[in-house]
């Protein structure tokens, strides 16, 4: 199982190591650095590296590498999932998962890691349980601790740890009982030159924020549950009820969690809310090119498309860009060759466009490829798949909770080829 963990920052410093079995020397990371050098870009470092005696499985998150060392045959997904869980936990505890945050809380980090893994086997990874064992740092608590001499390590066995619902702690109490659900849908799409859709799907999630006292048993039903045929559930969801009645029935964890994630892929269900008219050309034997893009609304169900940003990785030979936006502002980074246009929202009366000239390195050959456009946008109060929550019922507790559902549609990996 998982032998050791090294945390490495972007400049290649190992700033934390933790071993769950015998100590493995830091030098094992040299193989990782070698692979990193070969990959040129940090994002291209292969996640599984074999060395003569160990395997290194790594993830790259928030500008940090989490490199785990394993020695026996272990499912790599298991390790990768676990590493992401570690990063999630840091995020949850310290508000951000960064080198500074980890260094500032190194003792808590160490205690957490020890609690999360025993002999390489995951022990407690649910945030609810961890928080009972080790309390997250807050300014108030550290003041109290230093006065009273108490500690931030819980000294009783977490209640959820062994029950059939390990994700929920007992004795939860709130004065205001609330349950909020965010239905967030992201459109992943590839649009080809001519504007037709090569590939499109919706990645949806329902994130919940539940602050309910006691042991509430919730059931959430949809107007159109048939939309959901490819789903992954939080362990709290009763699979049988879903299979038979298409109702999400569950005893929720306390706090924030992802209830389900789903995928809608059938082409006709995926509406594409924006279109892009583009003409990007580089003239033969000349050191300039033209750049002209216009964005317009397409199937947006009568809602405003807002928060639009267009990102373009221009070819290497581009020296500079001289553009005029009709709306918003643009920047071009001559080092990374990334052009970003912050558009804002679309008003159908006057479509936003960005036009101008591109300066190329003189003498260099005309770029072969045209750059792809990466588009970000947001549509409030709409789930583009049409998914609608019907009602939320609560059993097992007597109080009346405050309930709310919010919908939002965003662009995921939304690419337009030119």
């Amino acid at each position, binding site marked *: *199982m998982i032998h050791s963990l090294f945390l490495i920052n972007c400049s290649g410093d190992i*700033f934390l*190591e*933790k071993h769950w*079995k015998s*100590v493995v020397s830091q030098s094992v990371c040299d193989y990782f650095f070698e692979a990193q050098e070969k*990959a040129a870009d940090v*994002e*291209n470092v*292969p*996640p*599984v590296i*074999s060395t003569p005696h160990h*395997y290194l499985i*790594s*993830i790259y*998150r928030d500008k940090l590498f989490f490199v785990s060392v394993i020695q*026996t*045959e272990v*499912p*790599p*997904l*298991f390790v990768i*999932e676990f590493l*992401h869980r570690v990063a999630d936990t840091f995020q949850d505890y310290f508000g951000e998962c960064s080198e500074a945050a980890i260094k*500032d*809380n*190194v*003792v808590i980090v160490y*205690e957490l890691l020890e609690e999360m893994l*025993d*002999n390489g*086997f995951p022990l407690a*990874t649910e945030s609810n349980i961890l928080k009972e064992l080790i309390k997250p740092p807050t300014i108030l608590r*550290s003041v109290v601790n230093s006065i009273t*001499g108490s*500690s*931030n*390590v819980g*000294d009783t*066995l977490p209640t959820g*740890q*062994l029950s*059939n619902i390990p994700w929920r702690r007992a004795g939860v109490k709130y004065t205001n009982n609330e349950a909020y659900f965010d239905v967030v849908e992201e459109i*992943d799409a590839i649009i080809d030159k001519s504007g037709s859709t*090569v*590939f499109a799907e919706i990645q949806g999630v329902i994130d919940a924020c539940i602050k309910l006292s006691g042991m509430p048993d919730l059931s959430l039903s949809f107007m159109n549950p048939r939309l959901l*045929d*490819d*789903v*992954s*559930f939080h362990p709290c969801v009763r*699979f049988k009820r879903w299979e038979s009645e298409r109702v999400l029935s569950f005893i929720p964890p306390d706090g924030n969690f*992802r209830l389900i*994630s789903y*995928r809608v*892929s059938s082409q006709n269900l995926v509406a594409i809310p924006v279109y892009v008219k583009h003409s990007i050309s580089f003239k033969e034997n000349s050191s300039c090119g033209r750049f002209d893009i216009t964005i317009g609304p397409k199937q947006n169900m009568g809602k405003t498309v807002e928060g639009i940003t267009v990102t373009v990785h221009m070819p290497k030979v581009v020296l500079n860009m001289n553009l005029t936006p009709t709306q918003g502002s643009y920047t071009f980074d001559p080092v990374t060759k990334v052009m970003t246009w912050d558009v804002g929202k679309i008003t159908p009366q006057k479509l936003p466009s960005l036009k101008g000239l591109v300066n190329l390195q003189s003498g260099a050959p005309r770029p*072969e490829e045209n750059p792809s456009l*990466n588009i970000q946008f947001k549509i409030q109060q709409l789930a583009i798949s049409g998914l609608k929550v019907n009602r939320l019922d609560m059993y097992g507790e007597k109080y009346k909770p405050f309930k709310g559902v919010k919908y939002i549609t965003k662009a995921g*990996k939304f690419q337009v080829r030119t």
Partner: protein
Amino acid sequence: MTDSKYFTTTKKGEIFELKAELNSDKKEKKKEAVKKVIASMTVGKDVSALFPDVVNCMQTDNLELKKLVYLYLMNYAKSQPDMAIMAVNTFVKDCEDPNPLIRALAVRTMGCIRVDKITEYLCEPLRKCLKDEDPYVRKTAAVCVAKLHDINAQLVEDQGFLDTLKDLISDSNPMVVANAVAALSEIAESHPSSNLLDLNPQSINKLLTALNECTEWGQIFILDCLADYAPKDDREAQSICERVTPRLSHANSAVVLSAVKVLMKFMEMLSKDLDYYSTLLKKLAPPLVTLLSAEPELQYVALRNINLIVQKRPEILKHEMKVFFVKYNDPIYVKLEKLDIMIRLASQANIAQVLAELKEYATEVDVDFVRKAVRAIGRCAIKVEQSAERCVSTLLDLIQTKVSYVVQEAVVVIKDIFRKYPNKYESVIATLCENLDSLDEPEARAAMTWIVGEYAERIDNADELLEGFLEGFHDESTQVQLQLLTAIVKLFLKKPTETQGLVQQVLSLATQDSDNPDLRDRGYIYWRLLSTDPVAAKEVVLAEKPLISEETDLIEPTLLDELICYIGTLASVYHKPPSAFVEGGRGVVLKSLPPRTASSESTESPETTPAGVPTGEQPDAIPAQGDLLGDLLNLDLGPPASGPPLPASSVQMAAVDLLGGGLDSLMGDEPEGIGGPNFAAPPAAAAPANVGAAMGSGLSDLFDLTSGVGTLSGSYVAPKAVWLPAMKAKGLEISGTFTRQVGSISMDLQLTNKALQVMTDFAIQFNRNSFGLAPAAPLQIHAPLSPNQTVEISLPLSTVGSVMKMEPLNNLQVAVKNNIDVFYFSTLYPLHILFVEDGKMDRQMFLATWKDIPSENEAQFQIRDCPLSADAASGRLQSSNIFTVARRNVEGQDMLYQSLKLTNGIWVLAELRVQPGNPSFTLSLKCRAPEVSRHVYQAYETILKN
């Protein structure tokens, strides 16, 4: 107030300061000090000097402080075993604490302290904790058994912990069950033979129940364990599948993939007519696709597995082509994998889409990716016949871009298209010829040369083109040289009149001016063929070529089936069986897919292939020897072979015969009539000699290259010799030698790929031999061996393998497997690699033994032409573990009395007589096993003369 303050006291005397703080009376100060110590530890600083002071803080009511001290202990106990004992009492006391958290913490920490002495004290508390009333303690104790087993396996067995652990599988708490399964699986991994996870329908039922209730990680352990179970019939398989399917909707991708593994494996047993079978197929697709929307690292592992699944059951994902389309900001490792799967899924139905995508990719920025995309277009053409024309025109478009690497890749794949569809697309040759000059990579040049040669009759200026290539013949890579040779011979056979000069030129270049044996051999074969019988030459050289297969890089079916059993594991990422890379062959159990149990076949008893049980059992019928060796290689790699004895001679004889006969017919027969009308025969008499000389020089080249190896220390190392020539092994050439250094024997191999395809999946196995030599580790060749690539590896050998007397005594028969085939060769190892370091016999003992061995066991040999002094000889022999026990000077002669010991404990005593001025030594050997004398003498000779 953050923890970063703990890092700041990095001035001199820090340890001293910490020491004072640790011994402070104030609790708060103590805790802060321990935190500082831990902070230093996290960055790899050595704070072991504070051990006693930290351990003193252990007896406390403050749980946080206790935990911190435990963290410290786990890291440093090993370096201070005696001090660690101090902690034992506290541990034992804590194991009795009323708070289950503290009991569990104590037993957990104790297990992490890898000190033998502590483990003895651990047994009693552990036994109690395994039966604790609190499930939290039980589940912690279960893992502790695995820890203890890792430190001292014997102790765990003696104490009966394994049985207790097995009982925990029936525990009422699902978390305890999951941890017991995890612990047992880990233990079983290091004991492949032990039948630890004795699964039966009852225990399976318990596991399935626990599966629904335990944590996500527990589910993974249970699913992985289920996958090793062999259901007794299809009905049981189906019911397990039904209970596992809900896991496909889990948010944790590792759970999903483990569930997929169980389903893929058990599906094998279901009848395809069953409704349930098709339902299951449908259910598998969505979760696999969902994995692709996760983080890139997860995607990568998922894609490697999907690659296997698509090969095994293409029907699952055949409609999901689009999810594999590449996004421009995917990491490169994801892009390449997606591309691979796209080609596998390409079919007539979706080829238009795929081609459009591939064309798009071919204009991307990343060179590796673009190359692979171009190659993919060619593979599509070969795979989907209807699309070939479109593919070819796409490739032509790409050639027009004139981007060098695109053109070169295109040429390489067009060659394959020509081979697949002869006489169909030759119209494009003209376009190809225009781009001749831009080709600078060997593979592309070789492909182009092949095309010119193959279609010489349609290319008007073929002779000019080839002549152009010929100018820089010596600078070309072997691949191109070989192609050029063949192409010109083809050209000559097609247009004999104009190209005589050209063919003469290339033949002499290949045979006389080249020191590449392959090239020379091919040159000679053509030369003889052309001079003996041009008609036959035509038949041979211009013979119809076999069509190339559709899929070039499919995984071999048996390996694929094995890999399916390893879905989700490292093996599935590397596409290699675990035996090929798991350290030391430790715990490799062969897994196989269960047989389909259709009702008609139900006579077959289920225990014939229970998965997970070592399938080393022999088939009833005795297979042919070749098969047997092959089987051995396939089944039983890694752990020391315990397979059936190999009837030795036949395999080896066949090999020798092949070489001898082949050479005879090639070299020996004098060509009688000179066939070719205008053709000058090669200097017939000179030819064999020429070959000999050339070979000789080639060999000595080789020797020069390697003579530096191994002279650092240890025994004398012979230069590498070719053991397996490429022509006998479909292009794999193996040369090697044996070394002994500081007590360990190894076989230094050099593998060269002289074929045109990539070689992978190497493995090696020895037949039983006189001294029990066996590979101590699997053959570690991680990267595939591409054409013309050479790797050097050192294979450690042990002498604990099975023993069988060989003739000659030092004969070693070796089988090497790769993705192409299994090859056999035999070699003689020098006996001195078996001379052990403690072979120096006591003087008295020597005398007694010498007298004791009967004189009929004495053998006398002459070592001639050895101009060494007695001292030099003695020194040289000593470095090869032949020790001079005594020395005496009799009548101007130096008498050296020497002893040596073989790995199997046989002593050999020697008397070496050296006369000053006489280069001949006389060697008398006495040994209780006189058969070895001859080989010891040979060893003497090699050591002294080199």
